[in-house]
């Protein structure tokens, strides 16, 4: 993994940890949002808004279904920010 990839990943992990009150050490790039992090729909929307505010983007509703893992979010942000 490149240094920039780590930076993006760490930022995403920071936001998930802060928004959803999950210990950072339990959040990995491969973590599934629903099955591993046990997020509910309300948490997911809360996260989407947190990412939108942090990265100054608008995440389209139809893209949400592609966010299965933390890595999916990192890849989406790298492509759209």
């Amino acid at each position, binding site marked *: 993994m490149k240094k920039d990839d780590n930076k993006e990943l760490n930022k995403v992990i920071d936001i998930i940890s802060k928004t959803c009150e999950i210990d950072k050490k339990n959040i990995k790039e491969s973590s599934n949002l629903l099955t591993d992090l046990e997020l*509910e*729909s*309300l948490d997911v929307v809360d996260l989407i808004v947190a990412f939108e505010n942090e990265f100054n983007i608008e995440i389209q*509703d139809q893209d949400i*279904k592609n966010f299965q893992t933390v890595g999916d979010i990192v890849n989406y942000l790298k492509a759209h920010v």
Partner: protein
Amino acid sequence: MYKLFISKKLSTKDLLNKVLKKYNIKSNIIYNEFGKPFLKNNELYFSLSNSKEYSVCVISDSNIGVDIEYITYKPSILNKICTNDEKKLIHNANDFTKMWVKKESYVKYLGIGLSYGLKNVDTLKLDIIVKKYNDYYIAISM
């Protein structure tokens, strides 16, 4: 016509299995592309939801969607999920949670989930059942 089952102990999966066993239904579960579950080769519809320690299951002879949520308030997401008219009606955690479960139950009824866009669900124009259960709200769309 629907029946609602609530459990404090069981996971949604275990609750569904218990309900299916009660009605002697042995169908396999299949999913649409957005993850909505259906019974294979069976005309009974069901929907599941959980929040904190509670799981709920509804079954019906027509399409149905259910959502349960612990009473909470996240004003930061109002602009993302509410129309301007809906926002005017939300003043506290009760208002927020009722609005949330209505929208969630409706997108689950549609079988599309969050991808439909919760702001596109105008709860002021929809007739959705809402019940309060302890510190939770449950909504049923059908």
